[in-house]
């Protein structure tokens, strides 16, 4: 039983990089192993924070969709109004993707129709989105 899987991954990554890799003779394996170790750290962060990051994105996108309702199709409105099917990362991710697809269309429509405030709010969201998802585990 590992209650904190992200911490467990970080510890395993550290063990890989500090205790196992130094014994490797091939420079290729050493480099590849180090990269895998860094990726495990990034995955640990995603495991710990990934769902919440996406939920924050989803909440913010939904506010944008309300502001841009006039530019959404009825089908898009159905998608934006749908509830999450579960809090599993894969399901949250699918929902996030579905909303992001609509965001791309709304962004384009806001440019074409001169909805400047809406356009600005989408850029602000994109800035916050990239800050939320910034990968710090890999230098």
């Amino acid at each position, binding site marked *: 039983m590992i209650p904190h899987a992200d911490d467990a991954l970080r510890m395993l990554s550290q063990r890989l990089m500090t205790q196992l890799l130094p014994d490797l003779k*091939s*420079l*290729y394996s050493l*480099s*590849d192993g180090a*990269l*895998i170790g*860094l*990726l495990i750290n*990034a995955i640990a962060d995603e495991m710990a924070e990934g769902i919440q990051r996406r939920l924050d994105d989803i909440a913010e996108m939904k506010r944008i969709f309300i502001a841009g309702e006039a530019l959404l199709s009825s089908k898009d409105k159905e998608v934006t109004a749908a509830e999450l099917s579960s809090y599993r990362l894969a399901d949250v*991710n699918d929902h996030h*993707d579905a909303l*992001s*697809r609509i*965001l*791309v269309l709304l*962004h*384009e429509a806001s*440019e074409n129709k001169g909805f400047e405030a809406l*356009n*600005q709010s*989408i*850029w602000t969201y*994109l*800035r916050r989105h*990239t800050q939320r*998802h*910034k*990968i710090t585990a*890999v230098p």
Partner: protein
Amino acid sequence: MITTDQVQIAAAEYLGEKWGTSVTVCNVEKIFGGASRETYKLSLEVDGETRGVILRRDPPSSLIDTERHLEYGAYDRIYPTDIPVPEPLFLENSPDFLEQPFSIMAAVENPMSDVAQLSNDQKQKIGQQKYDLLGRLAAKDPLALKFDEIMTVPKVVSTAAEQLAYWQGIINEDEIHPQPIAQAAIRWLAANLPPPAQKISIVHGDYRTGNFLFNDQAQITAILDWEMCHLGDPLEDLAWSLDPLWSGEELALAGRLIPHGQAIQIWCEASGLSCNEQALKWWRIFVSVKAVAIWISSSENFENGEGKDAILAMAGWVMTDRQNRILLDYLAPEVLS
């Protein structure tokens, strides 16, 4: 997946047949970082003499889905010029020897590629050569070097739009997740196409620190990785080399070597071309989109199981994240206004 032992046996047989003499492969070392091809350094004994060669083997998947004959053809045509590249030796299209096609080039002696440990003077020296060489490449006549035999010659008026359409297609085809930032960038690029290219040049396609070798005298000895070589606007290479992704924390330095302004000035002097600010801005945004496309492609390869190299996951995830932030810094309304 093949082992270094397999490479050792097959290379000895292949080179022995090609050179008509006995070849002993003394050592095989797989080189890390060759994400578009598996790369091996081989130490040989041929007729009592030792020499090194580099073998590049097509993997089942790569960061860049390129055709090997274009890359090899580029090496073949550049090698006789004043642009230093490794000597191309053989291109083998048959999978009979190593299960995949491969190429073999002469190894460069005492190669170094990591600039992190260099002194400022050494960085300055290498940076000047890097942009002088890029300018000289831009100045060359691709038709005189017979590049038209291996790749399409675009028109000066349409090369930017064609490049944009190509990489947009890659993003649309390979994206696993929607890419709102890249899509916004593509719309901006389409609406703000640059003036016609000053000329059609040989574009290396991945000209950056890390893709050239230098020696302990801080002399650039070989420019590598021509797999994305094409003909087009020479500003593309300049823009790619200036991308913040290659600068690490030293954003004021082009490829962690010399200041951007100095790099551009050297390039202009060596190429005899000018550097229109608006056109360069377009190409800088374009190369970030192109980079996103490459990282997305690698991510798709990793996700669908075609490739299992960690470098594919790293590119597809970590580098897309960084590249998106670079694009935001170019395109957000507060920057553009």
